[in-house]
């Protein structure tokens, strides 16, 4: 579920970063206005709990494999969606920096996939709707599993869409979906079971915890804005993906088709999300995405004109140049090491 920078395009990575940063700002603002000074320590320590809990695995019956808690839904139940979103975002940030679980550019995607869906979709629209304030055991378990599965599958769908829109992987959309969604179904069910079991345990041992939790999210109606935002994104994404399918073949022949039919395919593919993100990109003068600028401004650099042409001469010089570059980089590293070495205590 943790996206990798290597599979992202700048437009998708940057767009998701902006989205997640906006959500973090929004949640911080909501929490500041509620003015409970015990909230920050509580959130911090509870997110450390999630971190610690994720490090311990349990055995999954009849499979021989093991799993651990994800924590998104549990945090939302305990803290309310806004505090939970900040808590998850901080957990994912620390994971990105320390374990390289999801890159820095991919952090926006990761926070959105693993934070937004459980906190602002699964929890308010499924869990709270059905569970109510004092659910029966059966209801608690059913709704926890439902919400966890929904949150996780939406997150998996997010991963697929973000990868697909980045166009780095040649994996066809349908195949990718067919791989990702079934894998996350049992994971979601187990997440739901563990969440329900923990919630039930705490209900029995210390029901007042949930009074505090509801107090934390009390008076906060479910914000319509984030839901509208996600619907808009879903619309744009599906529109983008569907038109992508209509305009091009999602298989390995894509490259060949592109070169036999010219650049029309790329023009057709430049649809809603891509177009707007690419626009933002050129506006902010971040390096223009290669594939688009190829059709807009051909022959801008030597690399662009020679890129599609398969020519043994340029291939060889590319390899020779690459090898020499690697040598130079290695030498630079060695030289710096030597220089730095005597300074070592």
């Amino acid at each position, binding site marked *: 579920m943790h996206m990798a920078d290597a599979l992202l395009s700048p437009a998708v990575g940057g767009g998701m970063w902006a989205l997640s940063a906006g959500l973090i700002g929004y949640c911080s603002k909501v929490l500041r206005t509620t003015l409970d000074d015990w909230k920050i320590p509580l959130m911090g320590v509870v997110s450390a709990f999630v971190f610690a809990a994720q490090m311990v695995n349990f055995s999954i019956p009849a499979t021989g494999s093991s799993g651990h808690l994800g924590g998104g839904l549990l945090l939302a139940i305990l803290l309310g969606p806004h505090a939970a979103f900040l808590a998850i975002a901080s957990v994912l940030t620390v994971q990105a920096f320390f374990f390289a679980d999801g890159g820095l550019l991919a952090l926006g995607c990761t926070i959105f996939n693993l934070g937004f869906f459980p906190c602002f979709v699964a929890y308010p629209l499924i869990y709270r709707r059905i569970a109510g304030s004092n659910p029966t055991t059966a209801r608690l378990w059913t709704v926890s599993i439902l919400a966890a599965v929904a949150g996780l599958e939406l997150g998996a769908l997010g991963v697929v869409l973000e990868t697909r829109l980045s166009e780095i992987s040649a994996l066809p959309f349908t195949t990718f979906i067919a791989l990702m969604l079934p894998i996350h179904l049992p994971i979601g069910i187990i997440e739901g079971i563990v969440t329900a*079991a923990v919630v039930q345990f705490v209900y029995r041992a210390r029901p007042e915890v949930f009074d505090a939790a509801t107090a934390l999210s009390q008076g906060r109606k479910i914000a319509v804005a984030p839901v509208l935002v996600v619907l808009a994104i879903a619309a744009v994404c599906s529109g983008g993906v569907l038109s992508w399918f209509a305009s091009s073949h999602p298989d390995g022949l894509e490259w060949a088709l592109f070169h036999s039919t010219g650049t029309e395919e790329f023009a057709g593919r430049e649809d809603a999300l891509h177009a707007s993100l690419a626009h933002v990109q050129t506006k902010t003068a971040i390096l223009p995405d290669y594939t688009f600028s190829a059709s807009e401004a051909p022959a801008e650099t030597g690399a662009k004109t020679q890129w599609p042409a398969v020519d043994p001469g340029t291939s060889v010089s590319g390899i020779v140049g690459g090898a020499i570059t690697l040598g130079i980089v290695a030498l630079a590293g060695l030289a710096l090491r030597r220089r730095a070495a005597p300074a070592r205590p």
Partner: protein
Amino acid sequence: MALVDLHVAELGALEEMARRDSSLRRIDPRAKLVTTLVFILTVVSFGIYELAALLPLLLYPVVLLSLGDLPTGYILRKVALVSPFAILVGIFNPLLDHSPHLIVGDFHVSGGWISFASILLRFVLTVSAALILIASTGVHHLALALQRLGAPSAFVMQLLFLYRYLFVLTQEALRTVRAITLRSVDRKAMSMKTYAHFLGSLLLRTLDRAQRIHVAMRCRGYDGSVRLLNTLQFRAADALFIALWCAYFLAIRFGNVPHRIGELVMGVFT
């Protein structure tokens, strides 16, 4: 449970590195953060078939590893450890994309292999850059940098609290797991029921701890906002660090340097 020990050791190791003095350590965290982000954006902005053009970017992690006096093997091991997802998604490229892309004599390399290699190279570049950033900065300075760059203070506090209590709670979890393991002979991992009870009691202890922490903070004058001592100083060297690297990234991005070198060398021979 060995795994928990391992993770805690990993967390500690990077933080330990960040405490050592080096010329990279003395660069302002904001400068490092911004440069790292520009670097990652540069890496991912290359087209998927551009492999050779990416190579000069290796200079950034290589130089930083040297300047920061960081263990290369350790960083590479960490990069390898998290590579499965990128490999899993990228490995389909060679299977699906058979377009001929590179011809050396009679040997044809398909576009799929090139893009797969490019994904791997991007992966190494981006992940090592992120790891180098944390290994030369540390969480506290990074949080300060984030705050100064305009991140909401609630989020920065949240990060600092999480990091502060991470170790405490992991130790607590570790103790509980050890107790469970001692009482369950011959069982490799705990059952789901045990796991739920373990999590439940850990959660209750966590909530109690949060309450104690809050009371202790109130006693010391906490009023809902934590004031961070700003120790960051942005000097000319930091601006130079950003400017030089960004200029290098731009030069690499818009002029295919290995290609030029190759042409030059081939030109001499022909």
